[in-house]
């Protein structure tokens, strides 16, 4: 009996795919010989659309690049505009921005826990993770105005101050999540089944990760302590003490364990922000939005999103609209070059497992 090579489509409509992304696999039996990523299902031509709208009109548009974590996109756009236009941000706004970004990172990691636990079949942990994420979305609705698309961080600061009674509500939610991490450990992270199914799967060495442009959990899962919040601090990260968790191994097991460690650090940073927040104004006024022209120049800013290094290259021509905008998203090298390399030699049943442990988000790839 001879086996032959077949080409199959692990396409967008599949229970193992989170997001609208396709992979074309060449398989022999159950083993994968070659993988080809098939992006483009979510391409909107974002950067072209941003050239047709003014600097202020781009604020509602820019949070929609990555739907799982919209706050980092707004942060990186505001940082680029502030650098080009020379606008300063008051201190209270910096602390509120740090709080928003850490809550957003926590919500994104809980969504990742839902997706990964569902993929392995741990439904109970998936339901808990979604519930805790919903508590954070309730907080977002309180102070930003929207559950998913907030339009809160804008050039000059943030849009409005925190409402009364917010600090107690936020501390309650953060204490609740922190106290339940031991339940997550007992059910999922310390479970022998998780160890059996994730150890040694999707392995990538440190040198290969650096050659292929990996950042975020892919590097930290190989023992490299690299985080842009410590390299080039922005917002109020230089005033708060926190650790960067790392693990050895480079496989799916260590990457998902780092997600759990980062959740604990995010809760710690958010609580410190609420305690240390100074008084003051929350935004510096920008010029009249109908006539705001920014002087000529270019800049590259970067931020640590929950998936890796998120950067923005922006060029201004002295007009009232951006001349060229290019997002450097972390899922671009992870989902295209690294995914194609890692999948060779693995089983078909592990494709969803590997894709979610690499923390790839398709809208970031296509923009």
């Amino acid at each position, binding site marked *: 009996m001879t086996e032959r090579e077949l080409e199959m489509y692990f396409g967008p409509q599949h229970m193992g795919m989170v997001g609208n992304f396709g992979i074309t696999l060449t398989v022999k039996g159950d083993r994968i010989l070659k993988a080809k990523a098939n992006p*483009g299902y979510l*391409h909107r031509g974002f950067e072209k659309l941003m050239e047709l709208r003014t600097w202020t009109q781009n604020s509602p548009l820019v949070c929609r690049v990555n739907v799982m974590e919209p706050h980092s996109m707004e942060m990186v756009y505001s940082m680029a505009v502030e650098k080009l236009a020379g606008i300063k941000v008051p201190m209270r706004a910096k602390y509120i921005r740090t709080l928003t970004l850490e809550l957003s990172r926590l919500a994104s990691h809980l969504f990742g826990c839902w997706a990964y636990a569902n993929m392995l079949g741990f439904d109970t942990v998936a339901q808990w993770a979604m519930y805790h994420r919903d508590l954070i979305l309730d907080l977002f609705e309180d102070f930003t105005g929207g559950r998913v698309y907030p339009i809160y961080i804008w050039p000059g600061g943030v849009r409005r101050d925190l409402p009364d009674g917010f600090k107690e509500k936020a501390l309650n939610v953060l204490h609740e999540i922190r106290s339940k991490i031991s339940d997550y450990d007992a059910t999922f992270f310390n479970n022998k089944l998780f160890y059996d199914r994730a150890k040694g799967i999707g392995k990538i060495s440190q040198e290969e990760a650096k050659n292929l*442009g990996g950042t975020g959990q892919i590097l930290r899962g190989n023992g490299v302590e690299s985080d842009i919040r410590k390299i080039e601090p922005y917002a109020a990260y230089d005033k708060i003490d926190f650790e960067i968790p790392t693990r050895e191994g480079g496989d799916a097991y260590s990457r998902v364990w780092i997600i759990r460690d980062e959740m604990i650090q995010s809760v710690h940073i958010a609580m410190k922000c609420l305690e240390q927040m100074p008084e003051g104004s929350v935004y510096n006024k920008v010029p009249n939005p109908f006539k705001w022209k920014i002087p000529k120049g270019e*800049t*590259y800013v970067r931020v640590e999103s929950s998936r890796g290094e998120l950067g923005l*290259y922006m060029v201004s021509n002295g007009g009232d609209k951006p001349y060229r905008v290019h997002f450097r998203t972390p899922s671009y090298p992870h989902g295209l*070059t690294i995914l194609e390399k890692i999948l060779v030699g693995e089983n078909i049943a592990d494709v969803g497992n590997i894709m979610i442990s690499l923390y790839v988000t398709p809208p970031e790839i*296509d923009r």
Partner: protein
Amino acid sequence: MNKSLKKKLESDFDSSVEILEKNGWTITANKNQVLDILRFLKGEGFDYLALISCVDWIEKGEFELIYILSSYLADKEKMHLILKTRIPRKKPDFETTIHIFENAEPYERELHELFGVNFNGHPRLEPLFLDRNYKTPPFRKDFDTRKYVEETFGSIKSVEGKK
């Protein structure tokens, strides 16, 4: 250390270095020297290619290719370098940088599809995002997207009223 790097870049290669801010430099180079400068910078420790981008300066008739480099090493990771070069818009040909930085492959594919820049030596220049051919590559400044939407999607009639 940084001063000597700046001097070396300006004297050995035909380039001019401008310091935009404390840790961000802009290096403007001649298009024939770009590959040599990239090899030199990789040897100096800048081994992380963050982005390859392109800007369409339609009034001057040029495309500007941008290479943004940074480093994984502890003493250089704060810096980022923006390397710029210009190629003519009528015939946008350039060399691929895959043998220097392995992760340049999808960036060059995207620029080929959206701007029409041809990278000689690239193993796989097939479409990445788009499913159909456009007369002008869509990210160029002379592609009017609102007019295209009117013509293509506005001309399709809805089915409701038909018997």
